[in-house]
């Protein structure tokens, strides 16, 4: 198969080569430093702050619900952006028709945003 797809994937080979080169390089350096460095394990070396206050509690802390609201609203408008990209590539094709359709789409979502804003969920307090 000699379609353009194959060529394009082959050009990704360069990315793959460079990525693996990067891994090898880092691995090599770590290996070299492991060879030459002394090893004296101590319990203090494994806590988060070697000098300073001792950490208290678990490292997983419970987060607040307001983070979730922001993340959810972000997803919503992320999806909206997904639809805007294809439209942008074909603006001249659809002209006024495409503009109207897009404005209706964005308009409905904007009303949702207005609601969220007036409800005060966008305020961090």
């Amino acid at each position, binding site marked *: 198969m000699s379609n353009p797809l194959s060529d394009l994937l082959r050009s990704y080979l360069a990315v793959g080569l460079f990525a693996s080169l990067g891994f090898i390089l880092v691995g090599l350096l770590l290996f070299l430093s492991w060879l030459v460095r002394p090893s004296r394990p101590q319990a203090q070396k494994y806590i988060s702050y070697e000098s300073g206050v001792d950490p208290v509690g678990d490292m997983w802390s419970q987060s607040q619900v307001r983070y979730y609201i922001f993340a959810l609203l972000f997803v919503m408008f992320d999806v909206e952006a997904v639809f805007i990209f294809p439209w942008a590539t074909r603006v*001249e*094709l659809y002209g006024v028709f495409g503009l109207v359709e897009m404005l209706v789409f964005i308009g*409905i979502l904007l*009303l949702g945003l207005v*609601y969220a804003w*007036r409800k005060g969920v966008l305020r961090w307090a």
Partner: protein
Amino acid sequence: MTAAVLQNVLASVGGLPSIEFSSVAPSIILALGGVLLLTVVSVTKDKLPVWFPAVWTISAAVAALCTVFRLWIRVGKWGNLSLISGAVGLDRFSLFVIGTLCVSVVMGALLLEGYLRREDLEGPEWYVLLLLAAAGGTTMAAANDLIVLFIGLEILSIAVYILSAMHRRRMSSLESGLKYFIHGAFASAFLLYGIAMVYGATGSTNLARISTFLADNVITQNGLMLGGIALMLVGFAFKVAAVPFHQWAPDVYQGAPTPVSAFMAAAVKTAAFAGMIRVFVLALGPTYRDEWRPMVLALAVLSLLVGSVMALVQTNVKRMLAYSSIGHAGFILVAVHSSTAMGTSAALFYLLSYTFMVMGSFGVVAVVGRKGDGHHQLSDYRGLGRIRPGLALAFTIFLLAQAGVPLTAGFLSKFYVIRSAIDSGDTALGVVAMLAAVIAAFLYLRVIVAMYFEGEPGDEVAPVKVPAAVSVAIGIALAGTLLLGIVPDPVTHAANEATAELVAPRR
């Protein structure tokens, strides 16, 4: 790009679609009604009178109903159409279903009005979600494209998931919302997987194109197609709560706020059956009916029997109505199974009369539940005939109608369904349906006995308040139940005219 190239590109995809807003007016009115209500309340904050959202919702639903009548006449003149590049089918079938959905929105808004006041719940969001859910349902009913159908279903389902969790102080409401969401998400995934497989097998998501493709071509290796049909059926069966995909229904109906249970039983079922009929009877009916009919037969028989028998042993009235709604889904599946125009009309008539019956029943349950929405045991109905004779009489009529007593809507709807089964040669299925109706009659009698004949006259019975809006809703339901039973001709005529057709889009 040059103009010529642009024109070529456009031509290759069938040109710019013409958007006829008037043809999808009911959906637009309901959706815009919901979104604008959201805007109005968010701009004015709390300055609106309490009755405003309910009145707005009912006006939107009535306006949508008016456009349904206008479009009905238009279809009579111009015939069935396929619009917006084949995404929407304008035929009397979809208009009938949309009309039914509008009726359930009106009654649902009235029930909500009384309920929210009693429970001290604020929030126009209930009405917003009610309107948007209905918009999703109408989209489904008119969908001529599997993608449109799926998005309509998602709008409807997600809105109802939220509604069932919205009585946030009631633990069981939250739990029912969660259960409904998880089960519903599963069902949607099955449906979407099925749609993808059918798309793979036929190369289109448009129902008319699928239908013509299957008529013109014989798929020699049809595993993909059969898998798609099976998965889509599973998805729809979940949504209509047909056995064995019914487990969510009792818990969800019991836990959800009662007006939402009413809307769920009426509107979600109606829209899901409309989608099912469009996909299975219309698009796959001519070519693949031998493949899907046995599966629907199994669903119908199981739903009829399990729904009726399980309802008998319940002591919670909401749960009992949930099981009985599973049994009713079985009846409608019998009509779908016949896969004929007669069956479709029977299903439509059944859905409309069930909307009245179940909305009325849950309306009574909502007021008997009293503050806190928790008095739903059979024992809570003792002596209702004494302290609230009118309410008890209304409930008796709804229950008798659900049992299928003559002179009510329930009798004729069951009659049409069984006739359609026998007409298509399934006498055995008709007998099973009749048997289920007899079993179910006992359970409705149990409630009636509790209301009139149980409890001593001196017993203390907690007072039941009936808000004005709820009594209007129960009145509408009562009128519908009795009118459809006594003078069914106009509606029967309309249901018979409401044959669906898949019109191929212009290409």
